[in-house]
């Protein structure tokens, strides 16, 4: 699928730079909200001017400042955990596994939770065929697993920790909290 000589990052950047068309009804949604607070903008500008260029105007500063709702957010950056190991969106201890395997005819999830049965947990391909996923309920514990592509090729999860393997085929591990 890929030209081996081409830097894969160039392809990523090229893809990300493609124009994205947002829904033009967003404009209407914005302007509706803007119009709802439209009158305030005139007063906001006036308050700002008053603050910076004092003039002899009798205006209640409290009323003006009350309208100047400058929200100062202290942004706490919380990088998300690997989103695989999940829970509450779909139910308690439900974990979704995702892998990209373009061109695969079949992908299944195989691990300690399904007795390493290659046919027990087939994954579903998204429409494009590149992205495969499945959601499984897991009781708390630590599970070794891997993806089986086309019934014969083992793929570790590139987004999960690897474990030392006994069998010359890669495995990953997922810890489900209790």
């Amino acid at each position, binding site marked *: 699928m890929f030209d081996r000589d081409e830097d894969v990052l160039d392809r990523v950047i090229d893809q990300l730079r493609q124009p994205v068309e947002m829904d033009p009804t967003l404009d209407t949604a914005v302007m509706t909200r803007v119009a709802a607070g439209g009158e305030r903008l005139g007063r906001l500008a006036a308050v700002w001017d008053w603050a910076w260029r004092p003039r002899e105007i009798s205006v209640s500063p409290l009323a003006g400042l009350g309208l100047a709702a400058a929200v100062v957010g202290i942004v706490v950056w919380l990088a998300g955990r690997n989103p695989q190991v999940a829970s509450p969106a779909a139910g308690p201890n439900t974990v979704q596994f995702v892998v990209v395997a373009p061109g695969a005819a079949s992908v299944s999830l*195989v691990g300690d939770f399904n007795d390493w049965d290659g046919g027990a947990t087939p994954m579903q391909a998204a429409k494009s065929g590149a992205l495969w996923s499945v959601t499984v309920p897991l009781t708390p514990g630590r599970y070794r697993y891997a993806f089986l592509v086309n019934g014969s090729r083992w793929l570790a999860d590139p987004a999960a920790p690897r*474990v*030392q393997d*006994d069998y010359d085929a890669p495995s990953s591990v997922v810890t489900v*909290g*209790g």
Partner: protein
Amino acid sequence: MHCSRWLAMLPLAGALLILRPSTAAAQDPRLERRLDPATLESVTATIDSARLQGLPVEALVQRALEGAAKHAAPAQIAAAVRRLAMELATARQALGSVSSPMELEAAAGALRAGVRPADLTRLRHRRTQSLTVALATLADLVASGVPPDSAAAAVIALAASAGDDQMADFRRAVERDIALGAPPAVAAAVRVDAALRQTPGASSRRP
């Protein structure tokens, strides 16, 4: 066979006699379906021995099934199951005989990752509650690249004061820092200090 080997087998033979025949001979149907007879016999012997010692056997069954799924050679499957059985036994020796099956399985994972048995013992002495999450945290940290000694030191430092949720938070924070470029050992050390400062009543003295 030499005399000494017969003598060594006596305790096992005695144990087998005490058990009901069906227990000793019972084979897991999952293994029966998936392993060839020779591998089945070898793996079953290891599993039975482990069961006699009071070790959890489900992990051994899964390790054998993994080998079957990956079409590993019979000798490889047998060796892998024996190795895991030894790790479970070592884990029980390090953690004590009252350890739960989940604790032993998590500890075996930590041992496989390179954590020393002595560190498991230290962890047991430092933490009164279940060790399962702490041990899983330890193994996951090593899997993320934290050197085993650093991971063990970090988890032991938190063992007395951090609950299971805080252990999980700590692991996530370290993994996030590693993803952002921090050297793994440094990430673990920094997060331990931060966690100890936040936990009321925690000692800031690290072992």
